[in-house]
Every structure is written in structure tokens, then in C-alpha cells.
């Protein structure tokens, strides 16, 4: 039976942008090879972690939303575990509310991105490096 899944994984911050993209490609290929249909993917870039994982305080987040057989998840997670560049992963199956939410979220992000590119030359976002602890 085909199911809707969403998977988020965190890669180590020691990777370069290039290596990070390569890793993402690799997992994308894993999914496609297994016959999954990728509905959506998002790269959140380098993000601060709320608590250290493997002595790292930040990581590259990436999200895939895909439709596939349940067995694909097992293979994907095996690949996650084999790859030492992946620090954490989470795969969840989505119910109908989650799917509706994901779609709404996607559209919202698209709109926001469109608005940003429009407004970018006019108003640059203020720098946020005044947050000293």
C-alpha cells in the first residue's frame, strides 16, 4: 500500500555546502531508486540545535516528503544509519490532516519566498547579531 511519509534528517555541520548537497542527492537517489515519488523537499540550511548532538551545536536540516511503500522507509533508515554524516533522522507517516497542512505550508512558503524576492532590493533584513548571551 502506498503511504505518505515525511522525513527530516540532520547532517553534521563540518560538511561544506557542496558536500551537504551531495549527501542530499544521495538520499534523493535512494528514494527514487526504491520507486518513491518525492512530493516536496526543503533545505533549512545550517540551523542551531537546541542541545548538542555528537558535540555539535548546529546542523544542516533537510526534509523530504514522499509517497512510497512502507518497505522503502526501512531501506531509507538503514542508509541513514550507515551514513556517518547523518546525525539524526525522523520519518513519520502522514495522515490526511498532515497532508493538508503540508500543502498549505508549502504554498505559504512559496508565497513568502515570492514576496521576499520582490521586496529584497527595497528593504534588506536587519542583521540579527546583537543577541549576546
Amino acid at each position, binding site marked *: 500500500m502506498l503511504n505518505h511519509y515525511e522525513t527530516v534528517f540532520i547532517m553534521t555541520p563540518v560538511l561544506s555546502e557542496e558536500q551537504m548537497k551531495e549527501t542530499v542527492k544521495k538520499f534523493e537517489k535512494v528514494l527514487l531508486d526504491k520507486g518513491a515519488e518525492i512530493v516536496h523537499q526543503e533545505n533549512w540550511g545550517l540551523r542551531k540545535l*537546541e542541545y548538542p548532538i555528537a558535540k555539535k551545536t548546529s546542523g544542516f*536540516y533537510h526534509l523530504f516528503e514522499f509517497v512510497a511503500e512502507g518497505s522503502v522507509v526501512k531501506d531509507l533508515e538503514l542508509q541513514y544509519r550507515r551514513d556517518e554524516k547523518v546525525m*539524526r533522522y525522523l520519518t*513519520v507517516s502522514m*495522515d490526511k*490532516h498532515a497532508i*493538508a497542512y503540508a500543502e498549505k505550508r508549502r504554498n505559504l512558503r512559496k508565497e513568502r519566498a515570492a514576496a521576499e524576492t520582490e521586496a529584497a532590493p527595497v528593504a534588506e533584513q536587519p542583521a540579527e547579531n546583537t543577541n549576546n548571551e
Partner: protein
Amino acid sequence: MAQQTDIKYLTPIAVDIRKKKYCRFKKSGIKYIDYKDGEFLKRFVNEQGRILPRRLTGTSLKYQKKVAQAVKRARHLALLPFVTDNLKSNN
């Protein structure tokens, strides 16, 4: 002779009229609670990062379960801390 009913108070007695709690998800028709939105989930945890009970937030049982699930998922992905101090103040 002053009768008991004649007692007057200088300050009115504090009768606290509590506002009725309601489930914000039911009220605003939210069907799915996103574990990826750490900022939103922070409303349902206390300063130490513990999940707040239903009796404080007013969330209905159905959605409390979903909130708890979402918070736990967010913790796994380091979007929320397991334990901390002053979660609210340094953000």
C-alpha cells in the same frame, strides 16, 4: 444595633471570576500540530522545557495527545530542548 447584613467592606471581597478555558485547536479549527514549528510548540512547555498539563492550557484531550507527540518529535530533532533553564527568556 448593626445587623449582620449591614457589614460593609472597605475593599470589595475578591471573588475571582475565572475565564473559562478553551481548547485553542478546537476553537480555531487546527487539525494538525506541526512538530517542525518549534516556536509554536514553546507555548505548550514550561521554562524548563516540560510539557504543560491540560489543566493549565485548557487543551482538549484529543489535541493534548497530539501536542505531546509533536513536542516529543521536535525534541528528537533538536528543535526543542529536553531540559533547560529559562527557555522563554533567552528567546
